[in-house]
């Protein structure tokens, strides 16, 4: 519960809620515009900073030949793709977090609760340890394998949850997901045990998250999937509101509960799978951002989802910026930055929730 004064009114939300009560449309527009502005601001500003100081004038100087323009290369090859990847991954994980929390009716759910990240990790690990010669032929080997792993996990969990005749059981979903997480993690540990040191280091590194894509291709490939998923989220938003209050009442109000649950699960899994394939399983974004966003704009999913997109993008771009500058020339993996922020935050959440 957010801090309240004696009457139980949340002042920050109250200001937004009350002042624009004449138009939920107005609130919607404000939140969407604000979200886009936040994301764009992060995307435009972040590439300007880094572990090296570069000359922007040189970087944008078209008269210099590309092959020798180090400033341009640093900006357009090292930094910009990285920032874009961070924005995509951050928004995907944050929005998926919101959707999973609504689906499971639990504010402590994360995009990784249902086994997607361990499936992706297993896929990546298989390539890194025994992929060998095949893997070396293409940049897409590890991302494709991790996406395939994520898909496998999603399919298993979905099949179990949808096996019920009367539709879709979120409790089976949760149990299956948690069990799958443990099982895949055990497989991963076993692979590591038998692999050589170099592969083990590679997978450990992958698990910590890395957004240094150095190419626009992964972004272009993932973009259609994310667009599909995010469109689904926005369409589902009003139904998620109703579902998160009471499943029976939602059904009584005309919501097709089973269909909503299925589409939510599949679209959020798609977004999460794509995000993890680009940057590895970056944790805590999927729980910190949804909570912060709800504190600011409220739990209405029609506002929380657009807001989480922008906020998630800006948040991860910022975390990546910290990771690549704070101990320069070395880098702190982005997953560590989010964990350092997220760990204490999560604990605080648990304490608040218990009250």
């Amino acid at each position: 519960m957010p801090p309240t004064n004696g009457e139980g009114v949340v002042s920050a939300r109250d200001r937004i809620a009350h002042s624009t009560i004449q138009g939920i449309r107005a609130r919607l527009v404000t939140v969407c515009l604000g979200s886009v502005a936040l994301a764009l601001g992060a995307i435009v500003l972040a590439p300007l900073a880094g572990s090296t100081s570069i000359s922007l004038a040189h970087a944008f100087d078209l008269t210099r030949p590309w092959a020798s323009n180090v400033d341009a290369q640093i900006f357009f090859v090292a930094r910009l793709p990285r920032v874009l990847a961070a924005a995509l991954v951050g928004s995907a994980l944050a929005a998926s977090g919101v959707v999973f929390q609504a689906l499971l009716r639990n504010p402590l759910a994360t995009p990784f609760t249902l086994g997607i990240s361990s499936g992706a990790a297993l896929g990546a690990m298989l390539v890194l340890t025994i992929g060998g010669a095949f893997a070396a032929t293409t940049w897409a080997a590890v991302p494709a394998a991790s996406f395939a792993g994520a898909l496998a996990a999603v399919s298993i969990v979905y099949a179990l949850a949808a096996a019920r005749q009367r539709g879709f059981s979120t409790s089976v979903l949760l149990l299956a997901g948690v069990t799958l997480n443990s099982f895949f993690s055990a497989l991963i540990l076993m692979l590591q045990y038998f692999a050589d040191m170099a592969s083990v280091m590679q997978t450990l590194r992958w698990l910590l998250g890395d957004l240094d894509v150095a190419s626009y291709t992964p972004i272009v490939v993932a973009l259609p999937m994310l667009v599909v998923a995010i469109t689904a989220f926005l369409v589902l938003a009003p139904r998620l509101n109703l579902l998160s209050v009471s499943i029976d009442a939602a059904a009584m109000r005309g919501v097709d509960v089973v269909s909503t649950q299925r589409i939510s699960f599949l679209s959020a899994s798609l977004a999460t799978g794509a995000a993890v394939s680009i940057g590895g399983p970056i944790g805590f974004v999927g729980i910190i951002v949804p909570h912060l966003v709800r504190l600011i704009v409220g739990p209405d999913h029609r506002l929380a989802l657009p807001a989480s997109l922008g906020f998630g993008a800006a948040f991860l771009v910022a975390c990546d910026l910290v990771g690549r500058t704070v101990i320069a020339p070395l880098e702190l993996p982005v997953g560590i930055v989010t964990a350092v922020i997220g760990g204490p935050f999560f604990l605080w959440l648990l304490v608040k929730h218990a009250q």
Partner: protein
Amino acid sequence: MLNRRIGTRTILAALVIGLTLGLSLQAQTKPSRIISLVPGATEMLFAIGAGPRVVAVSSYDKEPPEVTSLPRVGALIDPDVERILSLKPDLIVVYGSQHDLAQQLGRAGIPHFSYVHGGLPDIFRTIRELAARTGDIEQGERVVKGIEATLADVSKRVAGRPRPKTMIVFGREPGSLRNVYASGGYGFLHDALAIAGGDDVFGDVKRESVQASTELMLTRAPEVIVELRADDESAPDRAAWQTLASVPAVRNNRIVLLTGSDMVTAGPRIGQATVRLAKALHPEAF
């Protein structure tokens, strides 16, 4: 009167006691059943002539060829203590970080030698210390002198030549430039590079390995990139480097692949590894 008391029996007893003591002392100074968990140390043992006395090696040992027939007892993470004890060793070479194992061995009364990773001087020191433990001091000296001679020769050949900025890469994600692991400004590879006539681009980072981001590689702009791999199986593709178009090594196609366990093992073959490095950097000097 005393002379008569110190009779045959007494002398015999003294002899027996003396021999036993002597033998056990000798057992302590010249181990005859050696186990090595460290590939680099295994190579050292064979180089200094203790090879015939090695009874088991680690799971990762491949050199020298004699080890292929020896039993395996695990390595850093998974030493097979039961197996080790059953082989009744009298000296075992362990990693410096394997404290628990060392304690266990101590309780079983087995002397151990802690192998500590470091730079080139540490390789020489380790060879000498190991030789002292196995009772092959002279051979140990010979091995060290041999390596030093090789290195001196390399230094002579590359002396006076311009030292290219070099990045040594020993790992990256297959097919791409994600998670590049490069040699940092500390350790035997860094030292070898210095002797081979190259300038380590990450010489200022006092760590054995550096995770090089795209930005870092573009900034440091190495003139030569040396990729090291332990074996042929995981040969990396060079096309991935094309994304770093402004790096001189990529522009001038000075990307060299060196495969072989000698390149990544801190052992007696570091001399020939340095020669290979030097040839890659200064082919005209050889």
